[in-house]
């Protein structure tokens, strides 16, 4: 008997060790891939310089200064006459020349020319029906001329993510100052939204159906989500095959009321939006808005909002409501931008720009000239408003790839986020820095909940193998006994179809559906709310252990508790293997992992004891 126990222990430990080893292998691989991409992101091009003159500087003017500087400058592109960006190649002493050029008052900035390379990505998926165009080993590279200046898109791994999804058909509502999406009155559609898809929205400020932008902010935000991309014009957007819904809630000064915004959230949720982007904030807690966010969530909508720009440890509303994803901003270096707010409600960080080093550090999109709503400009903005649409757009990609609702979307967003400083969650970055490609991978083709079930079945085989012939409950017939199998399913995948069948039920019935939808260990979310961290007592062997005491008295419960314990073992081992979630009171991954492994082990012992046939 003791010998056998030892065997079991050794076997189980071996499995867990192998699982942990393979997990750390893959994370190491990810880490090295990231490193190489960073290294190759920007390199100085030998002898090249870029000089940005004040807008409106003509070729004749700078030609006159060239002989003094000893360089031959040319406009960088046809945009040059407006943007004033020029480049020169074959410059001898770059530093000395730049120093001379910077003396000229017409020069905004002059610096060595940087070559931007797309980070190396995954190979194109072999399962694609038809090979995507413009795909090479570095991922998808759109032909938009200003794309090389969009460091933010490479930072979140868009070239690889675009190979999988561009958000086709998913409706993203932009609750903002409007979008320059149509020619109407003195409004004009901006040039780089031509070809983007729109759904009818609403203007809650002026109460009409023309949610045009009279400020500039909303069009910029919408551009990050779905700028017309690979159209040989301007810049790219993250989910460029998604559909934008313009909803105007902020006036021409960029302000709006909580009443309008709450209305707009319900409007968007009722009219087919899957994602709501709110690059806005301020005011205090509002019950009306909190309810609206909860309403949208119940309808399967993911609500994404900006953490705020006060640079302090307080997340603004609506981002701070439990139902919304709160987004902080990072600069090109990947560290929190100085203006970005943060705090305990923060969920994730995304590029929002940092212009302390100049416009190149901002987020570049097409928008309107704030002084002339009919004029299209390319402008570099910074703010948590700019970070928010990156997350909203990746949420759209996740919906396009089959995510069923906000729970699944958030799970994939957070699981894919690049951890900062090895922490599962921090006040400044939430779960980490947005990574579109990793989040798509974490979604696992819409079947992210299944692996814990496969783990449970593998562990069942292990348990059965360690039993001696006479103790075995029979190899396979156990699987077909509902009293065993149903608890196993409940503990691993939950009644996953409950929502699509009975979704929308309200009151107690709705709560029951919500509970059954989740695997049992995740029921803690119902009790404690959707916190940032899982409760370690639920993510442990506690529930099967307590129930197993009942089985001492009521022998008939044994198969059911065996199934439950195995289900828990599968759930916990998968949690440990995939990405250990942040456990409350255990903020460090290195503590969460052993906790999950040890509890998996305890669950296995319980399961084995329950399944063992009494030997006479």
């Amino acid at each position, binding site marked *: 008997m003791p010998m056998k126990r030892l065997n079991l222990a050794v076997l189980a430990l071996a499995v867990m060790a192998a699982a942990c080893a393979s997990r750390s292998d893959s994370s190491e691989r990810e880490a090295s891939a990231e490193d190489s991409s960073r290294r190759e992101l920007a390199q100085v091009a030998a002898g090249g310089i870029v000089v940005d003159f004040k807008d409106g500087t003509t070729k004749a003017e700078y030609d006159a200064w060239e002989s003094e500087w000893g360089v031959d400058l040319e406009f960088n592109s046809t945009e040059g006459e407006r943007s004033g960006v020029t480049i020169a190649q074959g410059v001898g002493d770059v530093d000395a020349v730049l120093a001379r050029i910077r003396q000229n008052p017409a020069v905004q900035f002059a610096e060595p020319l940087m070559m931007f390379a797309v980070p190396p990505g995954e190979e194109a998926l072999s399962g694609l029906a038809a090979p995507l165009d413009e795909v090479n080993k570095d991922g998808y590279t759109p032909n938009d001329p200003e794309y090389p200046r969009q460091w933010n898109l490479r930072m979140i791994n868009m070239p690889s993510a675009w190979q999988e999804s561009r958000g086709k058909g998913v409706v993203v509502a932009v609750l903002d100052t409007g979008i320059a999406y149509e020619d109407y009155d003195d409004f004009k559609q901006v040039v780089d939204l031509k070809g983007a898809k729109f759904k009818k929205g609403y203007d809650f400020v002026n109460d009409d159906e023309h949610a045009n932008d009279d400020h500039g902010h909303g069009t910029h935000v919408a551009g990050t989500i779905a700028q017309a991309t690979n159209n040989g014009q301007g810049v790219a957007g993250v989910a460029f095959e998604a559909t934008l819904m313009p909803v105007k809630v902020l006036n021409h000064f*960029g302000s709006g009321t909580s009443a309008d915004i709450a209305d707009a959230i319900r409007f968007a949720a009722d009219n087919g939006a899957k994602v709501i982007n709110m690059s*806005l904030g301020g005011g205090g807690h509002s019950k009306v808005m909190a309810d609206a966010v909860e309403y949208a969530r119940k309808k399967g909508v993911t609500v994404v909002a900006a953490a705020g720009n006060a640079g302090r440890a307080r997340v603004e509303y609506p981002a701070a409501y439990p139902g919304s994803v709160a987004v902080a901003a990072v600069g090109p270096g990947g560290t929190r931008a100085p203006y970005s707010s943060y705090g305990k409600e923060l969920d994730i960080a995304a590029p929002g720009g940092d212009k302390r080093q100049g416009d190149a550090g901002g987020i570049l999109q097409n928008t309107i000239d704030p002084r002339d709503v009919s004029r299209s400009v390319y402008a570099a903005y910074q703010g948590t408003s700019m970070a928010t649409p990156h997350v909203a757009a990746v949420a759209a990609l996740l919906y396009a790839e089959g995510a069923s609702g906000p729970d699944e979307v958030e799970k994939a967003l957070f699981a894919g986020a690049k951890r900062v400083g090895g922490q599962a969650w921090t006040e400044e970055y939430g779960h980490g820095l947005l990574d579109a490609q990793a989040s798509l991978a974490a979604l696992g083709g819409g079947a992210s909940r299944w692996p814990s079930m496969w783990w449970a079945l593998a562990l069942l085989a292990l348990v059965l193998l360690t039993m001696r012939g006479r103790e075995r409950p029979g190899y396979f017939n156990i699987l077909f006994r509902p009293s065993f199998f149903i608890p196993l399913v409940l503990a691993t995948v939950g009644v996953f179809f409950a929502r699509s069948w009975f979704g929308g039920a309200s009151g107690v019935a709705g709560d029951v559906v919500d509970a059954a939808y989740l695997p049992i260990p995740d029921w803690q979310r119902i009790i404690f709310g959707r916190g940032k961290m899982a409760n370690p007592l639920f993510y442990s062997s506690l529930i099967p252990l307590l129930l197993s005491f009942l089985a001492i008295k009521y022998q008939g419960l044994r198969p059911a508790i065996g199934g439950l314990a195995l289900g828990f073992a599968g759930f916990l081992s998968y949690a440990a293997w995939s990405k250990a979630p942040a456990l409350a009171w255990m903020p460090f991954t290195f503590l969460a992992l052993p906790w999950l492994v040890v509890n998996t082990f305890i669950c296995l012992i319980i399961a084995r004891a329950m399944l063992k046939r009494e030997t006479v």
Partner: protein
Amino acid sequence: MKLTGRVVYRDIEGGVWVLEGDDGRTYQLAGGDRKIKKDGQRIEIEGDVARDVMTAFMVGPVLNVASYRFI
């Protein structure tokens, strides 16, 4: 209410004018005339803080300026 501080232009979210108040808080300016936009100018403002207003700038509460004088 009366507030003193400095008028500052911040290049955030496309640009916004704020009052960096002597009370240590930042207010987003609204109302007043366009001449209030003097970057770095010390100022005394009479106005109201709007409580239920949300903005694209998110730098602090919105201060509706009734009157002001540079100091």
